[in-house]
């Protein structure tokens, strides 16, 4: 499955200055594994030591929240994933 993954601009420097990436996988977790194989620096940012998505990030599939159990959610060809950080500044 070919999935479009959209990163926040904040993380573009860890992904070759890109925010729109193509990843492959049948689940969100597989897509993230593919993302980390392409851009290993992102793994330390998004996952904890146990390989779980840090709670400071939310994943949306085609604009709808993948919460809870994001990593197991299925995706299909042409889907669009967003990873967005929790932000709190004012």
């Amino acid at each position: 499955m070919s999935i479009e993954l959209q990163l926040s601009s904040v993380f573009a420097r860890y992904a070759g200055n890109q925010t729109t990436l193509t990843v492959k996988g049948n689940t969100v977790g597989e897509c993230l594994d593919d993302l980390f194989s392409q851009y290993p620096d992102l793994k330390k940012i998004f996952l904890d030591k146990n390989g779980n998505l840090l709670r400071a990030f939310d994943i949306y599939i085609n604009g709808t929240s993948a919460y809870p159990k994001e990593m197991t959610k299925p995706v299909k060809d042409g889907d669009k994933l967003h990873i967005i950080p929790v932000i709190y500044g004012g």
Partner: protein
Amino acid sequence: MLSREELERYDRQIMLYGFGEEGQEKLKKARVFIAGAGGLGSPVSIYLAIAGVGNIRIIDHDTVELSNLNRQILHWQENIRERKTDSAVEKLRKLNPDIKVEGIAETITEKNIPRLVVNADIIIDAMDNLETRYILNRAAIDKNIPFVHGAVNGFEGRAMTVIPGKSACLNCVYHGVTVPREKIPVIGVTPAVIGCIQATEAIKYITGMGNLLTNRLINYDALSMTFTEFTVKRDPDCEHCGKIKNR
């Protein structure tokens, strides 16, 4: 009843289709609670003041620092070391002498929030931390007061409107997540955009115009100059609003 001077001051917005003198009178009677007089609170309060919102209560416990001045346009060089609320009240009254502006220099807590938001028609979340945002969100739900969330980081910002019992709340979106509080990067134009969205939502709610930003989280990425809209839903297990029946 609007005075002759008010009719002249607000002439260009009274002209708006669907707004009229009736909309202006609604703004005049409205009571808005703005939590934060910083990067977001500055544009929110300025635009609500000049639009003619009749009663603005703005709260902030900080004093003005030099490092605030790249984004907090309510405060100027001459206000350094003053309370932000004193600086804010002074500017807002000068911008519009016809409105009532009240500044409260307190820290928002679970204990004082019921008193702070009493009689408010709408709550604006212009805070700088998640913990206080959750306090505001819960108070909004408990008191059945609409709540407009905004947040920024760097060149990115986010906004959403909550109608308690009808739409997803902040806790439905973030599930109680807290993150360590850090000094974050930000450039003034980002809270300017998000603060203006929040002020627009408040004006729309008060006047009954348009469609609110409910069940939608809008994400603004200035570097790619894109707005992305995410669909959010009420979480039946939400600790803040899950037990509230649809209103």
